[in-house]
């Protein structure tokens, strides 16, 4: 990419999450617990022109590398995202996010009558029953959730 096209500066060390569906960057920040207490520089591009898919969002987090659990969480709302690990301005590792086959403690069940919403000592657990589009099924009450429902219930 030529420098004149860059709307966000390159980062020296950290993580670049690219190809986030347009409009979901803020959800990605939520998943990564990036809020007003953030201690590193975070740059966000929303509705950026993408060669692959029209428009996309992009998030660059300086001086932070993501755990595999965090990457799996991103897959729930941005299944086509790529995660780039940057060291000294170079991409040293690049992953496509892959939704896990099961998830625990990331999303809460949208069924208010589900036992996992009842102050019991369990974390909500789901089977990922479809990845495109993403659909998950509660291991307890068997409620299925997808799309916006998942995003709204991210813990």
């Amino acid at each position, binding site marked *: 990419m030529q420098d004149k096209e860059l709307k966000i500066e390159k980062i020296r060390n950290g993580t670049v999450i690219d190809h986030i569906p347009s409009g979901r960057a803020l959800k990605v920040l939520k998943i990564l617990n990036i809020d007003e207490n953030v201690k590193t520089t975070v740059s966000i591009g929303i509705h950026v022109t993408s060669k692959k898919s029209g428009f996309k969002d992009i998030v660059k987090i300086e001086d932070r590398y993501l755990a595999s659990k965090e990457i799996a969480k991103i897959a729930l709302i941005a299944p086509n995202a790529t995660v780039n690990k940057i060291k000294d301005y170079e991409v040293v590792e690049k992953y496509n996010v892959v939704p896990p086959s099961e998830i625990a403690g990331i999303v809460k069940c949208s*069924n208010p*009558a*589900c*036992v*996992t919403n*009842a*102050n*019991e*000592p*369990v974390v909500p657990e789901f089977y990922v029953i479809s990845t495109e589009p993403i659909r998950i099924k*509660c*291991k*307890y*009450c*068997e*409620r299925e959730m997808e799309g916006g429902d998942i995003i709204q219930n991210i813990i």
Partner: protein
Amino acid sequence: MLKGKDIITIKDLSKREIFEIFETAKEMIPIAKGKSIDLLKGKILATLFFEPSTRTRFSFETAMHRLGGEVISFADPKTTSISKGETLADTIRIVDSYSDVIVIRHSYEGAAKLASKFADHPVINAGDGAGQHPTQTLLDLFTIWSNLGKIENLNVGLLGDLKYGRTVHSLALALADFGANLYMISPKGLEMPDHINREVGEKIKVKKTEDLLSVIGELDVLYVTRIQKERFPDINEYLKIAGSYRIDLSTLEKAKKDLIILHPLPRIDEISPDVDYTPHAKYFEQAFNGVPVRMAILSMVMGVR
């Protein structure tokens, strides 16, 4: 082998295990009728009914007593430590340490699954909210199997409120697994949800209709469910629909000679009392079958069968 197994949804059981339950239940019928034995002597069943129940609770407790076992229970969930704010998880841990098997009914969906996580002994789901009630499905299937000798290729009509009752959903899925053909007979607005129709439609033939009389002659089994008043904003609409789905002797004029009629009970006025005296009426036998089927399950999960 069901030894040590939790029974939370009907999907926890393979077809082979279900047939084993049927064979065992058949042997249990004379015992259920009063020839008590000592098969579960020294074993303790804990029944935790956080929601009211008569048939399910009585039939589990009868099953345990007929097999020589003991039952511990509470009379009223309001008097338990749950009402003091104890978690269900803690209640289960404690009750599990007092007993050999737990039967639970609770208003939370997934409560039985949660119980199975905290209990070392087998947990049997006796209904969780609008969720699963696998022993009801088993006794429904058993009643069909024991009367007609098979389930495969039978024409089974599911009648009434097919939208809200999740027990009728699990029954439909189980019947499809066994290869029965299904007739979904329901008024507009209370039809079987699409995802169930889709799932069963992949396995078997499904016919949808609002008109019972147009299909009654084809059915081997008619499974009647209650249409609840609360589902209709207009009482007159309810009365009209409920009237047109009421089974009486004239409804059965064109029925096959060996059609059997089932109903999970309680019935209000879906089936006229005249029908009780016809050979079609199997709903009381179905309710009785709760005992031998639950005897089979209890003895199998405790590993004495």
